[in-house]
């Protein structure tokens, strides 16, 4: 068995520092909410649909409340109040607001018990639906058997959900275990979730609830045929983190890209907004039994994979601690890691082996999300195919959880049907060839791989202890993460963060916290 020889004290120090950092945000998680969180509440209450100009009703209602300065106690109470006052359901309330026929700030206020009762009913219903999806997933896994390790994960990204569905079914039939629908470029910067099925996107397909539904149905069909549960994933990142998480929970997505800091660093979304939104969105994911996936690979697309290896480890540790605060269990934390080492680097494979083993060593229960070479993928499809093979080799050798298959055309276009199929063929061949190879091998003591892993962990520990000392926001402001400077009050979406008042009520947050034991 390939096992690193790592100082256990170093591991403890790493976790202590990360926990200190994540733990310092109680003020934010307890006292603040955001537009996205409130829109999520509305969605969970059953509000869906959009105006003719495409503006989704959850946005219409929340913007309306904000405009009327009536959002500080949350969106749930005003809508519940209107339901009572007008005898409408939530959707009808939203539609009326949308038509400009209803001003939620001008209605007479029902007694709190009545309001809570309405909300209790709605939240009980919705949480039951979500639990139902979770149970259905569990049942299907129990029936068909668990996912292979590493699971074969491929992306579809045509921009057209119907075309995506065909490609996803083809891939699943060929052996893919998980289908990710890549989002259209920069959807994370949209402060709303588009509505309905979409057929045009750039570099990906919009994440919409209808698109989720279409793809889930397609995959359920294949699962049934193949007697293998095919998982679906999408992105709960950006300005709509919790909304997308909620949509995923309702439509039985199985995994969700959901990083604590990705939005801040890589999308210039305000730090407070991001941390707050991730807190709630992860709770939704935890409740729905959705496996989250974090975005450590992003550090390596802009920085050197050797020099900055420790930033991956540090981010993994932080993501873990933040996820724990939201009730995500280790076995649902798909922490990220990527094979982004320059192929011109001597012993690139040994470096990567050290890094990949370190991730396994630190997070033995995590279904690590292992990302393929992308940065050094080139227009030379033959070479890229080989780099992907080395990546698949390490994935199987070190038993990573989820293998995000590399495509030989990574540097050229979003995957064609045949590219994806060749990627699956690549993985299947390598996985089989080196199936139990790890059982045959041991690391030579004091070998380079051992020393290298220790070095990365030490650098990560020192970094995290420094951040714990200075505070995460200060460190980000100084550009300590990914060499990108992000001031606490900069970035997009800060105006969407507000301090809750004493009457604030979010029925879902309360119930989920309770059920998750938080």
């Amino acid at each position: 068995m390939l096992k690193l020889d790592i100082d256990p004290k170093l591991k403890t120090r790493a976790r202590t520092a990360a926990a200190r950092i994540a733990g310092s945000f109680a003020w934010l998680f307890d006292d603040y909410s955001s537009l996205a969180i409130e829109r999520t509440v509305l969605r969970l209450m059953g509000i869906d649909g959009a105006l003719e100009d495409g503006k989704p009703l959850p946005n219409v209602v929340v913007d309306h409340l904000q405009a009327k300065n009536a959002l500080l106690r949350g969106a749930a109470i005003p809508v519940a109040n209107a339901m009572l006052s007008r005898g409408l359901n939530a959707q009808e309330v939203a539609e009326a607001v949308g038509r400009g026929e209803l001003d939620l700030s001008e209605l007479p206020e029902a007694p709190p018990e009545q309001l809570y009762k309405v909300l209790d009913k709605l939240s009980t219903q919705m949480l039951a639906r979500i639990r139902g999806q979770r149970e259905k997933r569990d049942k299907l896994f129990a029936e068909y058997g668990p996912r292979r390790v590493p699971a074969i994960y491929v992306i579809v990204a045509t921009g057209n959900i119907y075309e995506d569905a065909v490609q996803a079914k083809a891939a699943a039939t060929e052996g893919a275990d998980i289908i990710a629908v890549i989002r259209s470029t920069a959807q994370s910067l949209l402060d709303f979730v588009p509505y309905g099925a979409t057929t045009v996107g750039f570099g990906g397909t919009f994440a919409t609830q209808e698109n989720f539904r279409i793809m889930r149905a397609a995959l359920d069909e294949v699962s049934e045929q193949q007697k293998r549960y095919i998982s679906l994933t999408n992105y709960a990142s950006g300005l709509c983190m919790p909304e997308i998480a909620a949509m995923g929970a309702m439509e039985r997505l199985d995994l969700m890209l959901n990083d604590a800091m990705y939005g801040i660093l890589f999308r210039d979304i305000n730090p407070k907004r991001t941390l707050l939104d991730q807190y709630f969105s992860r709770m939704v994911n935890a409740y729905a039994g959705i496996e989250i996936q974090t975005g450590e690979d992003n550090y390596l697309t802009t920085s050197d994979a050797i020099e900055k290896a420790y930033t991956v480890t540090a981010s993994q540790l932080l993501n873990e601690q933040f996820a724990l605060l939201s009730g995500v269990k280790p076995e649902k934390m798909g922490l990220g890691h990527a094979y982004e080492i320059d192929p011109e680097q001597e012993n690139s494979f040994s470096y990567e082996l050290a890094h990949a083993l370190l991730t396994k060593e630190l997070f033995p229960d995590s279904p690590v999300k292992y990302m393929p070479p992308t940065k050094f993928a080139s227009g030379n499809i033959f070479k890229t195919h080989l780099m992907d093979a080395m990546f698949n080799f390490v994935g199987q050798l070190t038993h990573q959880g989820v293998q995000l298959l590399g495509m030989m055309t990574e540097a050229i276009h979003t995957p064609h049907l045949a590219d994806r199929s060749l990627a699956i063929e690549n993985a299947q061949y390598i996985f089989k060839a080196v199936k139990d190879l790890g059982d045959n091998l041991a690391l030579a003591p004091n070998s380079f791989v051992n020393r290298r892993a220790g070095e990365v962990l030490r650098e990560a520990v020192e970094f995290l202890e420094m951040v714990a000392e200075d505070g995460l926001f200060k460190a980000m402001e100084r550009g300590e993460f990914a060499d990108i400077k992000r001031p606490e009050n900069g970035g997009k979406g800060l105006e969407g963060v507000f301090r809750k008042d004493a009457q604030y009520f979010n029925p879902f947050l309360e119930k989920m916290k309770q059920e998750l034991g938080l």
Partner: protein
Amino acid sequence: MSKNNIIRPYGDTSGDGKMQLSFSLPVPPDAFGKEAARLLLERIGFDNIEITCLRDLREGYTHFIAYAVTSASVDTSKIKVKVVETPVMDMEATDAYISEHIGRKLTVVGACIESDAHTVGIDAIMNMKGYNHRFGLERYQMFNAINMGAQVPSEDLLARARKEKADAILVSQVVTQKNIHIKNLTRLIELAEAERLRDKMLFICGGPRISHELAIELGYDAGFGTGSYSTDVASFIAITLAARAVKA
């Protein structure tokens, strides 16, 4: 799948015509070479040409990798495939069929002819142990299978077939460089005709670059390519000879 019969290559959008290409040209690995590659593809008729990689092959050559779009299409309703049309039976069924419809053992003589020494293919068809869980003709009750092996001159094969009063000749050709297989297969048929053997037995050829269509063109009764099994050939021989027997 396209709604009508007119199909084009598919990248990620129906009928987008995307194709991957690679090729080498005697040009340097620079902007000039890249333009030469682009022009070549344009000349062939491609659009939306993306030369994604230039690899210096040295000695004045460059290897190009490209993606491009073709406007060519195929009308699937007009496709006529020449394939062996006899149904495929397993060993037991074939033996039974021969017993019933022909009533005697069939003799087949096989060989890799001329310079070709690749016997694995013909062995897969003929030898006892067979290939991929199908026994070879030697194992069949109703076949008398004679495998002459590698590098057999055409003359020797024909002589043996005449001597054994063969019902079928099985020829394998694996080496295809400079179309040597076409030359060898053509010569064999010409010799057979000259020796008035052509109509006395079935002539069947096989190999990775052989198709039934090519075989027919060359004057053979059938051709079998990559992935053929003894069952395919045995069924073909049995059914075809039974039919001829009825006619005769």
